[in-house]
């Protein structure tokens, strides 16, 4: 579902040079650094990476939910429909959350209020943001529950979160997040805690509803398969920065960053013949308070050169590869942050053939 024509207009969300840090007793830790990306109307963007890569902090920064202190958004812009969210007051921001941007997190049990009925929790945003009266809000809440596949919805409005299963709770979260028809839905590891078959249900539901409502979707996950199936474009993050971005076809089929290649080689794949051994990335994820100089991936990289130690590779357009039809449609060029990208992409290609 590539939003071909709409991408030429102004993006729905523009994140520019975002930098978010945390002040800890051991010094300042920069969780997100120099992150720039767009989300267009109706498209699905994936943000993928391992623990500590900054993907969740990026999402929290967009909606201004970074706990402060210790977190500080040091600089950058988050333009949502042209307005810089970082300049809004708390009150103004509250209007954006829910009405403009909906959110779903990993733990539905801790995101829902245990002592309020789910009906109350769905009607609250409707009354606050859409100024519906109680009766109209309840009708709408029942409709929403129906929409997310909870049967007998009128009666279920009186249920409390503990009476629901994990999958049902996540359905309720989706109903709340979409209740005010936001233009953007952020799903941060929204299906990670669910069983495989329930995960598939929830993902299909999210994809169908956002397509139906024209909502843009930001999927944040460590699961490469989910991104491959659902995202139009993706950003691969490592140690606080975007290392590679492009359409799913570009990044998965013609990866050009050593980290992306390492990730793809690390996972056992059901879509390929069985190999006896995996080809993992050597070493460990670096401590964010003590990042290597130059390119943060350098100590684990088999292509690293002396240049990688002294300077940081910028995220640059990388045109020298098969772009595929999807790339031509979006008109957004793939980007890679690696000095050796040409060599890396070429050797990844020979490895495949």
């Amino acid at each position, binding site marked *: 579902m590539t939003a071909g024509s709409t991408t030429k207009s102004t993006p729905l969300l523009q994140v520019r040079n975002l930098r978010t840090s945390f002040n800890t007793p051991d010094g300042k830790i920069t969780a997100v650094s120099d992150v720039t990306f767009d989300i267009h109307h109706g498209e699905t963007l994936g943000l993928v990476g*391992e*623990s500590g890569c900054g993907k969740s902090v990026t999402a929290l920064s967009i909606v201004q939910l970074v706990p402060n202190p210790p977190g500080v958004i040091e600089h950058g812009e988050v333009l949502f429909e042209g307005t810089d969210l970082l300049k809004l007051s708390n009150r103004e921001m509250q209007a954006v959350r829910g009405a403009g941007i909906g959110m779903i997190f990993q733990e539905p049990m801790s995101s829902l209020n245990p002592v309020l009925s789910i009906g109350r929790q769905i009607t609250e945003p409707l009354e606050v943001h859409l100024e519906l009266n109680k009766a109209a809000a309840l009708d709408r809440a029942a409709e929403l529950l129906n929409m997310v596949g909870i049967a007998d919805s009128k009666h279920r409005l009186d249920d409390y979160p503990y009476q629901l*299963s994990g*999958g*049902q709770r996540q359905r309720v979260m989706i109903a709340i997040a979409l209740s005010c028809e936001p233009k953007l839905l952020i799903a941060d590891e929204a299906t990670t805690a669910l*069983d*495989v*078959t*329930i*995960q*598939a*249900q929830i*993902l*299909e539901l999210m994809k169908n509803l956002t397509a139906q409502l024209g909502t843009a979707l930001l999927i944040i996950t*460590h*699961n*490469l*398969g*989910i*991104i*491959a*199936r*659902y995202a139009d474009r993706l950003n691969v993050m490592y140690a606080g920065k975007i290392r590679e971005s492009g359409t*799913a*076809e570009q990044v*998965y*089929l013609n990866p050009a960053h050593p980290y992306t290649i*390492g*990730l*793809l*080689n*690390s*996972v*056992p*794949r*059901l*879509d390929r013949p*069985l190999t*006896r*051994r*995996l*080809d*993992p*990335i*050597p*070493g*460990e*994820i670096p401590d964010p308070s003590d990042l290597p100089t130059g390119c943060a991936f350098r100590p684990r990289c088999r292509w690293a050169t002396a240049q990688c130690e002294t300077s940081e590779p910028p995220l640059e357009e990388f045109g020298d590869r098969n772009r595929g039809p999807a790339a031509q449609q979006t008109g957004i060029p793939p980007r890679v942050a690696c000095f050796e990208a040409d060599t890396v992409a070429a050797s990844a290609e020979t490895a495949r053939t």
Partner: protein
Amino acid sequence: MTLETGTTSKTAPREGPRNSTATAGTPLLSVRDLSVHFPIKRGFIVQREVARVRAVDGISFDIHPGETLGLVGESGSGKTTAAKAIIQLRKADSGSIMFEGQELIGLSNSELRPIRRKMGMVFQDPYGSLNPRMRAGDIVGEPLKVHGLAESGDDYRSQVSGLLTTVGLSPGMAERYPNEFSGGQRQRLGVARAIAAKPSLLVLDEAVSALDVSIQAQILNLLQDLQDQYNLAYLFIAHDLSVVRHISDRVTVMYLGRIVETADSKDLYDNPLHPYTQALLSAIPTPNPIHERSRDRIILKGDLPSPMDPPTGCHFHTRCPIAAEVCSLTDPELRRLAPNQAAACLLATGYDAAPSSRS
């Protein structure tokens, strides 16, 4: 710090998984009709049993020396409970567990002690399963002390150093505490401790599930190296079917306490016979956008039923895309439908004519 796992292997990596001929001969572990029930008690002063959860409801399988059996299922399927019963961390209600030719059910604690040495376990949470106040060396070496496997202090220290090296850590790390290790390193410690007493069977309960993918791959390679080196048998419990396929020779799929399908890994993934296995495989997105966008997924209706009140007949019939009326009335049994494949589905091709898998 480089932690390449490949260095620990002395043998050349095998080409592909071993085929089913490896399963001939006497099994190392033979589980028959194993059941574990949890009583649900009510009452304030006098508690009486009001119901039972059949967490594990009559399962049977074998594991041969040096072989990996993958055990797959979602929450409430009973896979962890079954594993705990096998390594005698939980009492079984009925059935038989033969390990190295000896029946474990009914043995006293002192009789079990020498047997426990032969069975190691690695848990999911490398943070929760290591004692934060013990040094890494003592965590790894504790089984040596418990089972009296070190002849002297020097022998103990050299064995601990050897174990740390085997799992890709440096012997100098023996003095550190668990909080000084990363998640992947802690799981290496967990593996070192589990193999310290030279077991013949390792139970790995979601042992790589909590790890980041780049680290998960390192641990999977380490496990394969150790298996080649020591001819270890693995009971590999996981919900991630792609990981299970990678490491397992055979795979058993559980649903609400029962086995629904068991087969050689290749057969199970190439040609799953039970509708639940088919749905599970279909539910997993692969990192290949072209493949993903061209295939339809089987999306199961509804939630997992409560194990306290499982559906009648085939437990899966309430969510099964092909269920017929008979499925709510009759319990299917696990029947051998292909040479290395058994499934418990009344509607599977050839079910009526097939022999029970027990015969």
